[in-house]
């Protein structure tokens, strides 16, 4: 039960990558059967876009300014839904205990969950983007924008998976995740919205690099931090 014991586990007999992919595969297979997570995230995203349309009166001129903001708010909220669900499934069926009993590096479990969550989030984004393009007659297929979205999604999922693993173990569960996560993920949202807006406006790259670098920096820092801290999150 002490914190120290985590460091003294025997060396894992299975390779890091194969155990990580096993977790990813498990998540994908489960999702392929139930389709709960993706469908919930997708319908929710479309509803958010719809609500934005009426709350912001998205006419042609204003749309240029707020498109990136609307998209990111949609992704952030839908992502919270997905993160909560993906960890709650593990907790409910005691799957998490099963995973932890497996003689693998716990960081592999974390990165497996991260990749699974990232795939779900990117799938939802891939469906929402063309629909938004059609509904608002805006061209979103700017390569730079897609790169920004990828970087932002990685940052969002990396910190979100760590915090979701914590929040499912508390009494307040689902309510707690956005409260824990949003202040921590704020740099991602700020930089991603800025870079996305600039890309959509076709601004020069030297304006955009600052935000992109910050996204990359966030991803590196939080991946390293989560790698070190995840052990303590799941320790019993």
């Amino acid at each position, binding site marked *: 039960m002490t914190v120290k014991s985590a460091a003294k586990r025997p060396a894992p007999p299975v390779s890091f990558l194969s155990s990580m992919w096993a977790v990813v595969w498990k998540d994908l297979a489960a999702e392929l059967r139930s389709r709960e997570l993706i469908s919930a995230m997708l319908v929710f995203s479309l509803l958010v876009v719809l609500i934005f349309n009426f709350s912001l009166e998205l006419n042609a001129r204003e749309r240029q300014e707020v498109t990136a903001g609307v998209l990111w708010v949609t992704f952030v909220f839908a992502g919270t839904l997905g993160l909560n669900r993906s960890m709650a499934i593990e907790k409910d069926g005691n799957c998490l205990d099963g995973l932890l009993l497996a003689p693998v590096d716990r960081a592999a479990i974390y990165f497996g969950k991260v990749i699974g969550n990232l795939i779900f989030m990117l799938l939802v984004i891939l469906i929402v983007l063309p629909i938004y393009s059609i509904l608002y007659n805006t061209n979103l297929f700017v390569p730079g924008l897609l790169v920004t979205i990828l970087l932002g999604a990685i940052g969002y999922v990396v910190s979100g998976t760590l915090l979701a693993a914590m929040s499912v173990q508390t009494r307040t569960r689902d309510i707690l995740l956005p*409260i824990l996560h949003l202040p921590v993920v704020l740099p991602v949202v700020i930089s991603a919205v800025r870079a996305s807006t600039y890309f959509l406006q076709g601004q020069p790259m030297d304006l955009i690099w600052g935000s992109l670098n910050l996204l990359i920096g966030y991803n590196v820092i939080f991946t390293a931090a989560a790698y070190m801290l995840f052990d303590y999150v799941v320790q019993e």
Partner: protein
Amino acid sequence: MNAKPKALMALDVASWALLAVSVYLVLVYAPMEAVMGNVQRVFYYHVAAGWVGMIGFLFAVFAGIMYLARGDRKWDVMGLAGVEVGLIFSLINIVTGSIWARPIWNTWWTWDPRLVTATIMELVYVAYLMLRQGIDDPDRRARFGAIYAIVGFLSVPLSFFSIRIWRTIHPVVIGSGDAGAQGGFDMTAGMQVAFFFCLFTFTVIAVDLLWHRVRLGFLADKVEQLKLKFSS
């Protein structure tokens, strides 16, 4: 443990005395700033509170790292104390800043990097308290608290830089200022005396409060253990 330590008593007295002197220095001794007038006097407490709030949070991060490394409960009590003290002083920092900004910037609030970062830091540590509230098992509460204190603190400078890429109007009084800053000024000797005295005063008060809070935490732990002993 039960009796209040002598040193703590002395620190209490020192805190009150220093605070009284600092009020005199700030309101009477320090010269009036030529452009802004009397409202500039809020600056002394504003910076001191911000400084102490930052110390509180840094202390909590340090305690979090120590807890994860050592697994000793005392670090958890200290971390919580650091967060609570940090929260109070950061709030004072934000409110006094707002009072100053109303006449100088002509607005209570602006989305400047420093202002947003201070607010985010406040929210991170409010979330920290909510996280602790949702966990019954004391070991898990301590572990998660430590992790969140660290993760939250990592994101704070990143928030600052992500907004800074825009630009800032917040004055930088110490060190080189930004050309776009509004409401900056140079401190005269009298102002510097008041300023550094306030920093010192608030540091002493913060240490005093931290000590009280840590002591309270240990006592609460003891009560919890006694309760468990009697109920079993």
